[in-house]
C-alpha cells in the first residue's frame, strides 16, 4: 500500500503543475494573453555575438562545476540549472552558426558532453551552418573544480573570446572565470540560481540572469507565445506565496504559528 509523504511540498508542486498546464492551455486557446518583461541579459546575447562577429574572435560558454561528480545531472538543483543553461546555449550556438563565429565550450561534468554536443549540433543546423561542428568545440577539462577552473581560465586567456557566457550552477569558479573574461575584454553574460555566487557575477559581469530569470531563459529565447503561459503560472504562484508569507507574519505577530500548525 502506497503512502503519501511530504504533503505540503506535494500540494505546492501540484498547484504549480496545474497552473502551468492550465496557463499553457488558455494561452494556446487564445483566452489568455501573456507578455513577458524584457530581460536585459537575454536581449544582450545578440549584441554579444554581434560583437564577436565584428571582432573576429570566438565565444566561450560554460555552466560551471556545481553538482559534483556523478551528481551533475542525476540529482540536485544543479541539474535543473544545467538544463536551463542548455536553452541559452541552444540560442547562442544558433547565432554563432548564423554569423559564422567560433564557439568554445568548457565543461566539468563529463556526462554533459553528449548534451552539449547535441544542443550545439542542432543549434548549428538551425543557424544554417551544420558544417561548423567539430569535436574541438566542447572541451572536457576535469571533473575536479579547480583543475577545471585553471583549464577554463587558460582557455579564456589563450582564445581571447569576445563574449563570455557563464550560465548555470556556478560555484567559487564564477569570479575567477569572470575576472579572466574581463581581462581579455570580453562582454560577459552570466546567470545562476545560487544566491551565494550572484554578488560575484553581478559585480564582475556586464549582464546577469538572477535566479528565476535563468529558468525562464529557454522560454524567453524560444519566443514561443504558448510557453509564456508557464511564466504567468510562476508569477501567480509567487503572488500566492507572498500573500501566505504576509498573512503568516501577521498571524505570528498575533501569537499564531501557522508553520507549526502545518507541521513545519
Amino acid at each position, binding site marked *: 500500500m*502506497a*503512502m*503519501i*509523504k511530504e504533503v505540503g511540498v*506535494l500540494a505546492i508542486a501540484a498547484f*504549480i*503543475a496545474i497552473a*502551468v*498546464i492550465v496557463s499553457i492551455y488558455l494561452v494556446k486557446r487564445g483566452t489568455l494573453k501573456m507578455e513577458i518583461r524584457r530581460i536585459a541579459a537575454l536581449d544582450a546575447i545578440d549584441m554579444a555575438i554581434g560583437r564577436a562577429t565584428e571582432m573576429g574572435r570566438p565565444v566561450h560558454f560554460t555552466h560551471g562545476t556545481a553538482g559534483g561528480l556523478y551528481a551533475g*545531472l*542525476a540529482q540536485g538543483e544543479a541539474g*535543473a540549472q544545467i*538544463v*536551463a543553461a*542548455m*536553452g541559452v546555449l*541552444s*540560442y547562442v550556438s*544558433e547565432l554563432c552558426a548564423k554569423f559564422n563565429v567560433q564557439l568554445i565550450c568548457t565543461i566539468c561534468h563529463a*556526462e554533459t*558532453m*553528449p*548534451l552539449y554536443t547535441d*544542443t550545439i549540433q*542542432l543549434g548549428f*543546423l*538551425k543557424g544554417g551552418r551544420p558544417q561548423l561542428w567539430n*569535436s*574541438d568545440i566542447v*572541451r*572536457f577539462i576535469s*571533473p575536479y573544480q579547480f*583543475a577545471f*577552473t585553471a583549464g577554463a*581560465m587558460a582557455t579564456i586567456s*589563450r582564445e581571447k573570446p569576445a563574449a563570455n557566457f557563464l550560465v548555470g550552477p556556478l560555484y567559487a569558479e564564477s*569570479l*575567477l572565470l569572470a575576472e579572466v573574461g574581463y581581462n581579455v575584454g570580453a562582454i560577459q553574460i552570466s546567470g545562476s*540560481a545560487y*544566491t551565494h555566487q550572484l554578488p*560575484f557575477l553581478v*559585480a*564582475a559581469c556586464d549582464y546577469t540572469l*538572477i*535566479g*528565476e530569470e*535563468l*529558468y525562464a*531563459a*529557454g*522560454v524567453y*529565447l*524560444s519566443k514561443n507565445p504558448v510557453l509564456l503561459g*508557464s*511564466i504567468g*503560472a*510562476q508569477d501567480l*504562484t*509567487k503572488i500566492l*506565496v507572498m500573500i501566505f508569507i504576509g498573512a503568516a507574519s501577521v498571524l505570528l505577530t498575533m501569537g499564531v504559528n501557522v508553520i507549526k500548525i502545518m507541521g513545519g
Partner: protein
Amino acid sequence: MVWYRRELPLTITFVLGILISSDYFLVFAPLQKTAVTFNDFATIVATFALGLGAASLTLMHSKKIIDRSGEWYHSVLLVASLLSVVAVGLIFGVPSDAFQFQFKNIYSPLEATVFSLLAFYLLTTAYRALRIRTVETTVFLVSALAVVMMNAPVTEFLWGGFTNIGSWVLNVPNTAGQRGILIGAAIGAVALAIRTILGRETGYLGGK
C-alpha cells in the same frame, strides 16, 4: 527529423520524470526499488561519460601535439600527467601511497593556488563594482562598507555601533533579498521541471 532524435528522449524524460518525482512523494517499496535502480543507471552512464571525456581530452591534446599547433608543449604535460595518474592507479591501486602522493603533493597545492587567486580577484572586482555611478552602486558601496566595518577588528575598538549596522545590513535587507531570489528560483525550477517532463522545454534538444 528521425523519431529517436526527439520523440525517444522526450518519452524517456516523461516516464523517468514521473517515476523519480513519485518516489519522492510516495512510500511504496517497488517504486523505491525501481527509482534506486534508475539512479544507479545514471551513475553508470556518468562513469562511462567520464571515460568518454577522458578519451576526448586525450584525443584533442594528442592531435595538438602531432600538429605542433598552438602551445602544444602544454598538451604534452597534460597527456603525460593524465597517463601517469592512470598508470599509478592501475599498478599500485587508488589507496596506495604512490597514488595519494600525486594528490597530496601535486594536485592539492595546485588547487590551493588557483583558489587563492580569489582573494586578488575579489579586490579588483570590488574596486570596479564599488565605483559610484548610479544610485544602486551607491547603495552597494554603503552596504559593503557597513559589512567591512563590522568585520574589521579596529572598528569595534573605535565604535561598537558598526557591528550593529553591519549585522542589520546582513540580517535584514540582505536576507530578505536572498530569500526572495530563492523562492523565485525554487518556483522557477519546479515550473522548468514540469515543462521538461511534459516535453515543452526542449532547449536541451536544440529547441523546436
